[in-house]
């Protein structure tokens, strides 16, 4: 008997076709999609305010802006129960070890939003001796929200960006996110207080100062 011809590959279903099917009551999904959909709509932030931006973060959770529409109204007081660290304000050098420690205490999968100019780069206080010039020197940041402080709408926009990132994640393969790769650690070294600065002043695995060559 001759061998049966190989079965034709299943045709890729476009998004438009899937929407059409959904209108007829047929839901097509993949495990990856379901997993990401669930996680992206229940991002619970840590109830952790640092400075001015924290007030706008609170405002975002109140009636007018209502962060509950995005499934993120459950601000958890404990890092063990939180998925999202919103670094809302100036991180001082005295506070930086505590922020890293909180990040380390959060279970994977976890995400970090740097809210406001101070958390991104030190912002208006960049030239201060006790101001950390950006939290991305010690922990990885997923979304940066500019502004001083960002409006609550901007925080919501940042949250939607994060949700898009989560929806695009792969659950297997080399492009899988950190929490699905056993070799990748979600813990980062906590800096210590030195005589004049933090020791080390940055995490060299995460951040290096830009190599600018002065032209003169």
């Amino acid at each position, binding site marked *: 008997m001759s061998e049966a011809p190989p079965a034709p590959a299943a045709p890729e279903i476009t998004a438009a076709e899937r929407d059409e099917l959904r209108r007829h009551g047929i839901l097509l999904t993949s495990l990856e999609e379901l997993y990401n959909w669930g996680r992206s709509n229940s991002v619970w932030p840590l109830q952790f305010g640092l400075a001015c931006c924290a007030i706008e973060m609170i405002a975002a959770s109140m009636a007018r802006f209502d962060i509950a529409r995005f499934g993120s109204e459950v601000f958890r007081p404990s890092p063990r129960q939180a998925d999202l660290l919103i670094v809302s304000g100036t991180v001082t050098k005295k506070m930086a070890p505590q922020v890293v420690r909180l990040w380390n205490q959060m279970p994977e999968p976890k995400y970090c939003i740097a809210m406001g100019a101070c958390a991104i780069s030190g912002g208006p206080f960049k030239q201060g001796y006790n101001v950390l010039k950006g939290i991305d020197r010690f922990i990885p940041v997923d979304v940066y929200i500019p502004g001083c402080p960002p409006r609550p709408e901007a925080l919501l926009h940042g949250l939607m960006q994060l949700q898009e990132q989560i929806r695009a994640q792969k659950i297997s393969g080399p492009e899988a996110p950190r929490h699905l790769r056993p070799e990748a650690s979600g813990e980062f070294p906590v800096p210590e207080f030195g005589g004049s600065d933090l020791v080390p002043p*940055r995490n060299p695995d995460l951040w290096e100062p830009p190599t600018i060559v002065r032209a003169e």
Partner: protein
Amino acid sequence: METPGQIRDRILARFSGAEVTVVTNPGPAAQHSLLVGAAHATAIATFLRDDPVLQLDTCSNVTGVDWPGREIVETVRQPLAPEEDADPAAPPGVIEEKIKRLVPGSLEVVYHLYSVALKHGPVILRLRTADRAANVTLPSLTPVWRACEFQEREVFDLYGVKFTGHPDLRRILMWDEFQHHPMRKDYVEPDDYEWEPTPHDAVLTKARRHYPAPPAAPEEESTP
């Protein structure tokens, strides 16, 4: 309320040997202050608090000020002794001599006192240390006004003034291991500085320190 001069006279009448001088404020605010010697500071502060005319029962504000030592060049003019055969109508000759004088630096602590009971103020007290390095000890006024407790700790932290008689003199804003006094004028902050998109003079100076001039690079590799 009494003028600072009147208060000084009453303090001097009460405490013989106290050093009190009125520091005139030349600005439009005209808030003059009293420079008080450290030896009698606590006694004078208690007197100001308990005096029935003043009743300065609260200390509103405690501040440190850093005055680094500086060099002053003074020009001293001395008339020359006229020579014997000189024309008496001619103007006498003058020797100009430039003298460099080193004004020693000091740390100053400023107290703004008010009276809640009588609703007047401020009376401004200033205490000065002998220098900025070894002799930075001043008496604490926390036993007189509790309001000074945290503020004197702040002055200790940021300026390095050591207050004797303070109940709990520790660093308050910086961490305990920190070794400098950052509000002093000669404090050099750690080099964790990067380029800013809109540089101005201070930023450029810092950036030059952070990014030293590159070694003479070949022409084609020079960056714009």
